[in-house]
């Protein structure tokens, strides 16, 4: 088996890299694929919290690199889904504890036994970013419809272009607020795609459910009724190569009706 290694990156902090990693990883595992999530944000780890695994971590990626444990021992299995496991970052060390080659080796090892290796990249464009990108052949660039996030995403896209190992990258537009787009107070999905000229892999609406799901340590894709959960499940399907239409969020008329529609459909399914 040779799995795919995908890095989830953004440049700017706080746009939802970790949330995206947790949700795409969980959604892919729910589809029956074996997935490993790697948190490369050394010193500022959070992926464990979003997955609710913070109490189960014994070994971290630095322990693996410094030979204190085997790679297999450091993988923490998800509570619900045995297909999903986490390789946590060390909280007490900084970015210099790992170098690009070491991370590359770990990815090579993991992709032998997994369908997907998802790398949660730290914010910034320094060493941490370079490390995280080194093992990946695909990238998902997370951004929000705000100027600063888009500018940073543009920078990241430029850096990804320069990396030969990265075969393709796609854009995930997070925290979209259809009502603000409608009143011309927020850039629309089309605006952002046009500006960055980067193919789109997902549009995630702003959803207060994200806050409660983080509180509980349970990714929102597990919530069948949440719109953001649906959007992330669609992203996972697109990662798998399925053609799924984007949730039509910024329809100028009848947005409320659309939401009701979506809920109605979901109820039928459940």
């Amino acid at each position, binding site marked *: 088996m040779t799995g795919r290694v995908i890095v989830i990156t953004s440049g700017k902090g706080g746009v939802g890299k970790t949330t995206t990693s947790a949700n795409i990883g969980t959604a892919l595992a729910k589809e029956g694929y074996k997935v490993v999530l790697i948190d490369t944000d050394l010193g500022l780890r959070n992926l464990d919290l979003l997955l609710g695994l913070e109490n189960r971590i014994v070994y971290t990626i630095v322990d693996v690199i410094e030979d204190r444990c085997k790679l297999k021992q450091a993988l923490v299995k998800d509570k619900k889904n045995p297909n999903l496991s986490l390789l946590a970052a060390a909280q007490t060390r900084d970015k210099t504890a790992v170098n690009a080659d070491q991370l590359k080796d770990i990815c090579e090892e993991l992709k032998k036994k997994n369908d997907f290796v998802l790398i949660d990249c730290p914010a910034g464009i320094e060493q941490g970013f370079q490390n995280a990108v080194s093992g990946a052949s695909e990238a998902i660039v997370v951004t929000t419809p705000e100027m600063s996030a*888009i500018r940073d995403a*543009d920078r990241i896209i*430029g850096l990804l272009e320069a990396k030969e190992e990265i075969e393709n990258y796609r854009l995930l537009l997070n925290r979209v607020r259809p009502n603000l*787009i409608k009143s011309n*107070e*927020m850039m*629309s999905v089309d605006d952002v795609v046009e500006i960055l000229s980067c193919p789109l892999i997902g549009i995630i609406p702003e959803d207060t459910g994200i806050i409660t799901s983080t509180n509980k340590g349970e990714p929102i894709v597990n919530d069948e009724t949440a719109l953001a959960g649906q959007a992330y499940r669609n992203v996972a399907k697109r990662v798998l190569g399925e053609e799924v239409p984007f949730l039509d969020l910024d329809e100028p008329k009848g947005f409320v009706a659309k939401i009701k529609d979506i809920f109605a459909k979901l109820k039928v399914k459940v």
Partner: protein
Amino acid sequence: MGLFTDFYNTVAKFFRPQDDENGGDSSKSVATNRLKLVLMQDRTNLTPKILEQMRGELIDLLSKYVELDKELLELNFEHEGDQVALMLSIPVIRAKDEEEIEAAINNSKQQEDSSDDADENSDEEFVDVTDESSEQIEKNSDENDSEQDSVDEEFSENTENATQPIKKKSKKTSENIEESEENLQEEVFE
């Protein structure tokens, strides 16, 4: 000529984004425009003034040959593979006929004659310029050079820096684009 333009503007109005009618000052369009500009600078290291100047000169040059919609003309630097490409979108209302082109060229020639003591050989140059547009670019910017000496001095530092990243990034750019970009920068701003 005016009839064409009027007609075009009436039709085009229907297709322009709505916020143009609201004066284009919704916070969204402000953000989009600011962002587009800042990304052009990020991608090329050119200053806004220089970009605006480049846009203005391109419009002047192209207006001699075709009637174009200046408002909708878009100048953008985009990532194309691992290079940066200069993208120009020029909405052409209609092509001018030969007489108009000659008139426009003579007109601009006269303007330059009067505004500064134009080069002695500029007359000859401008007659056969119509055939070879590449020469046209060079010569046109040569002419402008003299006018803009003062501006250029201000920017000379910036431009020296600015030419570097493009060269780096566009290693394998199709030679046309690279050359024309470099031409523009070097010719206009050195």
